[in-house]
């Protein structure tokens, strides 16, 4: 391309793991001329974005069931629409109330229940304000986290943009407010703004679902903003065919870009010679060589299992070993012989995102159990019935229900082996309180505890985000200091999954940012 020469084209890349981020990363690189192979351990691509047939004739999204934050930049860069991406019907959130006074939370509108005019007005203001904050953080989301020492030009640019966004994007008063609440907890903030316990419970759920945090845990404003980032550009939706159809579109886009993909190809170890990654060894013993290895697996899997820990400095290994990445969410899949009868909800409303978090006290109590390695007696639930919009997911007249249930701590005191049914019973019992007779409608059921997620999705700890989104594990500390800019202490080894900045959810951003990092590191010879 110039006289310094484009060397990317001659570089071969192995991507360990075909989660959505692995697919995105691979596609970017292949489009830039790299020769890319993805090795996925499971029988299908997509990782947490795959669909799963949990009972004959019943299909759900295996882990992630709501698409709420896919990056528009990724979508257009990779021409995902041309590859058949369909995000599906957008949905609102309905916070369920036992007495039928449910409330519907739109992007900045509220409806239903016995809400006061003050709350309705405050909600619009609150959401616009918070979406503004989430937008202000965009320069951080879209770039590698800046190093604070030895910054390069890009880092300075990122910080400059961030500063500009905070100061001028938000304006002085908003910026001051943002700095005030940035580090505190959602509990205090919501109590300042709203009256309705149900409304506060619903927002608190978004701040803590997927984390080992309760509404009173510091840092839950940040996790809420992270969750909200998707709403800066699109509305949450339920893709038809389940999340696997998103994975399929990504897979097609990757294939179009020239990426080769192998499933049932579990990487046993990453080969390192003289401190540089040179390839991988599969479980079968087969060895593959490449100039660059990119791991879509979580940090503990990558640095403690796939690479011999003695290849790293001791403190680095200690940091990785100390990452808090134990999941707290179980996935429950139910096959139903008909639609559940939730008091006061129409069929149209049943097809939305239903949540059970009646107040913040409930949420905090649910979390209390997790602190002591017990599952919540009354869990928080995020429920979807995707078969309402997409009848192909269940036999005629039947339905599937997909539930994310918290808190279900990975390291359960009594062990999940004997407790998984008990927790599933609690989930069903909670729903039963809103939909009498619900239990009798269930024909088939499945629960994936964090331990199951760990084994089935090759994700140590089974954590939603591949690691807590706490302030000490974010930005330039994600997943750990020393590997926070996608590159790692091992030359030629990169991270591209949710373990890396900016974390989990189906955004595609870790994959995109990692690809850019790889290109910058290898594209041009000085």
């Amino acid at each position, binding site marked *: 391309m110039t006289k310094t020469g484009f060397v990317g084209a001659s570089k071969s890349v192995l991507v360990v793991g075909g989660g959505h981020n692995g697919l995105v990363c691979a596609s970017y690189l292949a489009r830039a001329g790299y020769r890319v192979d993805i090795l996925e351990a499971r029988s299908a691509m997509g990782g947490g974005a795959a669909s799963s047939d949990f009972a004959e004739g019943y299909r759900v999204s295996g882990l992630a069931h709501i698409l709420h934050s896919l990056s528009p930049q990724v979508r257009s860069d990779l021409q995902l629409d041309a590859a058949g991406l369909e995000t599906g019907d957008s949905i609102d959130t309905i916070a369920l109330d036992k007495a039928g006074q449910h409330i519907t939370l739109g992007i900045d509108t509220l409806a239903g229940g016995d809400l006061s005019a003050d709350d309705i007005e405050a909600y619009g203001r609150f959401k616009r304000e918070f979406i503004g904050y989430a937008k202000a953080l965009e320069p951080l989301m879209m770039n590698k986290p800046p190093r604070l020492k030895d910054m390069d030009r890009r880092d300075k640019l990122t910080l400059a943009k961030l500063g500009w966004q905070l100061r001028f994007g938000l304006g002085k008063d908003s910026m001051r407010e943002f700095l005030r609440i940035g580090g505190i907890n959602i509990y205090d903030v919501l109590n300042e703004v709203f009256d309705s316990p149900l409304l506060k419970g619903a927002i608190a759920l978004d701040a803590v679902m997927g984390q080992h945090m309760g509404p009173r845990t510091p840092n839950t404003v940040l996790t809420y903003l992270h969750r909200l980032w998707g709403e800066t550009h699109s509305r949450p939706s339920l893709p038809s065919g389940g999340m696997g159809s998103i994975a399929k579109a990504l897979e097609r886009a990757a294939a179009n870009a020239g990426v080769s993909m192998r499933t049932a190809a579990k990487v046993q170890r990453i080969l390192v010679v003289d*401190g540089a990654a040179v390839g991988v060894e599969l479980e079968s013993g087969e060895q593959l060589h490449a100039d660059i290895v990119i791991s879509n697996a979580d940090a503990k899997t990558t640095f*403690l299992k796939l690479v*011999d820990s*003695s290849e*790293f400095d*001791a403190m680095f290994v200690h940091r990785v070993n100390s990452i808090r990445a134990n999941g707290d969410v179980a996935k429950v899949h139910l096959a139903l012989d008909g639609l559940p009868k939730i008091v006061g909800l129409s069929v149209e409303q049943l097809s939305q995102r239903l949540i059970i978090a009646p107040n913040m006290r409930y949420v905090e109590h649910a979390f209390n159990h997790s602190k002591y390695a017990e599952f919540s007696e009354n869990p928080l639930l995020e429920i979807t019935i995707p078969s309402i919009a997409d009848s192909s997911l269940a036999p005629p007249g039947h339905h599937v229900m997909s539930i994310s249930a918290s808190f279900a701590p990975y390291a359960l005191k009594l062990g999940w082996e004997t407790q998984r049914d008990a927790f599933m019973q609690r989930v069903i019992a909670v729903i039963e309180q809103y939909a009498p007779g619900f239990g009798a409608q269930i024909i088939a059921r499945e629960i994936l505890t964090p331990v199951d997620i760990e084994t089935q999705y090759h994700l140590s700890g089974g954590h939603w985000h591949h690691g807590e989104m706490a302030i000490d594990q974010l930005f330039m500390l994600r997943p750990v200091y020393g590997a926070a800019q996608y590159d790692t*202490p091992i030359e030629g080894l990169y991270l591209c999954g949710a373990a890396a900045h900016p974390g989990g959810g189906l955004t595609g951003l870790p994959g995109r940012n990692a690809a850019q990092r790889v290109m910058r590191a290898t594209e041009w010879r000085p």
Partner: protein
Amino acid sequence: MSKPPPNADLTPLPDYRQVLQPSPFHTRLVEHCPLQNWMSWNGYQTPRVCDVLASEYFAIRSTCSVMDLTPMEKYRIAGPDALKFLNRLVTRDVGDLKAGRVTYVVWCNDEGKVLDDGTLFHLRAGEYRLCAQHHQLDWLLLSSIGMDVSIQAETHQVAALSVQGPTSYALLTAAGVVGLDQLKPFGILHTRLRVFDLMISRTGFTGDLGYELWVEPAAALSLWDALFAPAQQGLFDVRVIGLSALEMARIEAGFIVPGDDFNTAETTVRADHDRSPFELGLDWLVNFDKPHFTGKRALLRERARPVMRRLVKLRVSGNKPPMDSFLYDAEHGRRIGTVKSQSWSPILKSNVCLADVGYSNGLVPSQIWAEIYYQKELEWRATWAECFMSEKPFWAHPRRLKTPPRNF
């Protein structure tokens, strides 16, 4: 005499007034310490000076000295990954350290700054002892993540004496130790003396002929008595020494003490107040042609940059002690460093010291002067003394290397 229960003498006393712990040699040690000049070494009651400092020093250099080494931090390292663990821990290649051999090592943090130094004993095939200046258990455990290795602190489970000086070989032989004649420097001998097992290593901290003796605490007093038996017959001048005499000898020998001569990385808060092996003049301990070790990447980067400072050995002219002195580059009139440890060397008739000296752009300062403050009858005076850099240790007597040693 009935045998004391194992470790009886080590059980910490419940008495809150017992600030310092007595070592297993304590009852004998006190007989040699009329000064009662005690200090704490790792929590043990340790003599600073036993009787007369000059006599203790000359016991090291001219006859034979005995020092209680029990308080030294000791760790037992074993298991399938023991060697892998150690080679990843330390900067030098210990892959070829044979069973029965000892070597000097340092280890660094991820930034390539020295955490501590010590001696590594390959006791028996696959079984190691690491002796350290400071407590290292946390770092060792942290360094063992992902490895199949057992690490045990054994400071209190091993009693040790250091026997150093030209007549140490003769004394030990006279005390009944068999097999010392073939023991090379940095070698280990497993033997029996009287009724107990004894391990002897030909190691020390004095730059002279000397040995370190290792036994179970229960055998400590028997070992002591065996050692002093020839002396009691008037055959040898054996002297118990305290840490002050050792300090003089080790500075002469050019050995560094982490925490005194440089700030250990773990205790350093301020940027650039810690030191790499290169900055300590320990380049020979860093081996880049071995499996990865902690700090390697940082040290590779450092090696590519010019040398910024060195811990150097300086002979200081005059007779004023260069204690805590500032050092100046006389050519450029700049302050370039400070004296760390210093001592009058009676045998060299000179002041000697270890000093942290800045090199500008990797250039060794050609003329170094020390600014010395001293008192005369309670009045402060200042003077200047020229310093001369010494590449070699000030004292390293060839007799320390001879096998068999001379039977003085």
